[in-house]
């Protein structure tokens, strides 16, 4: 795709849950490289380790063994607060639901991350409005999450994930709670941002229609990579929209 080094590299990444009678290998020896600008789907049956893998890549969870490099930095070597700062400046997150702070408006939710980053007021205003436009919610910017539909909430979540200008966005089943039309709409926005702004997206999903939009599909089974395919003509679909 390009000559830049991969933005994410995992090395024998493994997570073992040792709580029950039998230890569960949620993620098993995963070696993965994600390049700048990818639009990649992580698929696999329930319990295959998608969430666990995304959490480790995003620095939310520590691996049992193996390593994660993000932008050339070893997440395992970072202290707790360093890791939080690293997430704040480098990684955008979209979760399945309840992403937003209920007492803040759409606009304030997006701005929040930039406040944590201590961005100037001018910079914040500019970027927040730009993002609201990108996700098509200028007219809803003063509404609180409970006044927004599930799809609109997820769009705000995507905008918030981008507010910090991250290296990539991790989205764990972002469409799971949406109907298919709203899901398609969210995917349109995500792939537009990917195409036009070059934002790297990695999302897990069960939804075949969402999988169809990905440029690369990584399939997990029992915590290990079963297949890793590049979809050559996926972008054609976007350009026809």
């Amino acid at each position, binding site marked *: 795709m390009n000559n830049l080094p991969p933005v994410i590299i995992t090395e024998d990444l493994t997570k073992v849950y040792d709580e029950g009678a039998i230890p569960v290998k949620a993620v098993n020896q995963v070696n993965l490289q994600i390049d700048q600008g990818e639009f990649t789907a992580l698929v696999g049956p329930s319990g295959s380790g998608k969430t666990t893998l995304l959490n480790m890549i*995003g620095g939310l969870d520590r691996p049992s063994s193996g390593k994660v490099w993000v932008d050339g930095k070893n997440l395992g070597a970072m202290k*707790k607060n360093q890791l939080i700062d690293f*997430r704040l400046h480098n990684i955008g997150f979209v*979760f399945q639901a*309840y992403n937003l702070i209920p*007492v803040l408006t759409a606009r304030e939710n997006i701005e929040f991350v930039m*406040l944590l980053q201590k961005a100037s007021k001018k910079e914040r205003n500019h970027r927040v409005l730009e993002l609201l436009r990108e996700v098509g919610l200028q007219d809803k910017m003063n509404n609180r999450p409970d006044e927004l539909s599930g799809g609109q909430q997820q769009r705000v979540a995507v905008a918030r994930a981008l507010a*910090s200008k991250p290296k990539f966005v991790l989205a764990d089943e972002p469409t799971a709670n949406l109907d298919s039309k709203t899901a398609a709409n969210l995917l349109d926005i995500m792939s537009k941002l990917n195409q036009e702004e070059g934002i790297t997206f990695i999302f897990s999903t069960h939804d075949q229609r969402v999988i169809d939009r990905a440029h690369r599909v990584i399939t997990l089974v029992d915590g290990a990579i079963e297949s890793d395919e590049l979809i050559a003509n996926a972008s054609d679909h976007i350009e026809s929209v």
Partner: protein
Amino acid sequence: MLLKLAWRNIWRNKKRTFITMFSIVFAVVLSILLDSVKKGLLDKMKENVVSFYTGYIQIHKKGYWDDKTLENSFDWQPELIDNLERNKSISLAIPRLESFILAASEKYSKGCMVVGIDPEKESSVTSLAEKITKGNYLLSSDKAVLVTEGLASYLKLDVNDTLVLIGQGYHGVSAAGKFPIKGLIKFGSPDLNKGLVYLPLKESQRLFAADNKLTALVLSPTRTDKVKELVHSLQLELTDDYEVMNWQLMMPELDQVIAGEKAENVIFQVVLYLLIAFGIFGTVLMMTLERQYEFGVLIAIGMKNFRLSTLVVLENVLISVLGAIGGIILSIPIVFYLFSYPIKLGGKLAEAYEKFGIEPIFYFSMAPRVFYSQGLVVFFLALFLSLYPFIKIRRLEPVSAMHS
């Protein structure tokens, strides 16, 4: 940003926040009323005795306080008084000659304390002239007495009647005299009201054959909060022939009563606030537990645990301090009313109080301390109760928080 977020968060569950606040308002009002009446009563009790009679500091001949006889009197020395009054910490030094004596009318008699005074000076320190309820105040040249109401009614005497005083004077000579009653005076302290007779100093010295003698110099300090220091410096200044005592030393019982009453109040308030603390803690706990997922998201997207726990502490403190401020605001008019119109006990209850030497009136204090101290108590209580969520959130991991 944190403050705005905290403010909005506390109104997420309006009902719960209001209930919590109301319980705090209730506790604060109750506590303030309690403190106010206690302080009011104690201040009054102290005022009744200290300001109106003994004064903050007295100088006697050494040993007088333990053995209050005329033999322990000392010579009036104008230089001593001048010296004392030149001291910047002392506004006035007033002379007194006091002794026990039998007061009698035609049919009745009763032991009482005769106080020889310099009428003008005495009144400028103890406001004695303002306590006249009937008749007139004394002049230095009068050969007349002022009698407390309680004593006069016991003896069935009134203004212009004659009071007979019989007892022992200096060096055991017999002392007797007849004096017209020039005025009646009323003291708040029932004990004092029962048995005081005031006489101009010269007359009392003649009565007791104690020419030029004094039993006490009552000092009026310029600052009542610096009495201990003043006593100490006077003790060093004066010769060993004299003793300098503050009111706590002269009346340890009163001092103890005041200290004891204060402690009693504290126990009640601790119980009260303990009950309130459970309410606040319940709210704090709910506000923390029901938002685990949200906290997980916030930490995930880059908010540090410390900031998040500060947010939660801020929320708790906001609720509590708002409740405390509400309580203080609500209590101000109530206390002000009771301060202006103290509750007077009537009938049997009043008699019972007087029997124990307590004025049967509930006075309330408007001292600022009564109010803000409750605010501080609630503030620190909230901080303390926030400790649990604070520690809990500092340890929170995003994945496990979002899992629950």
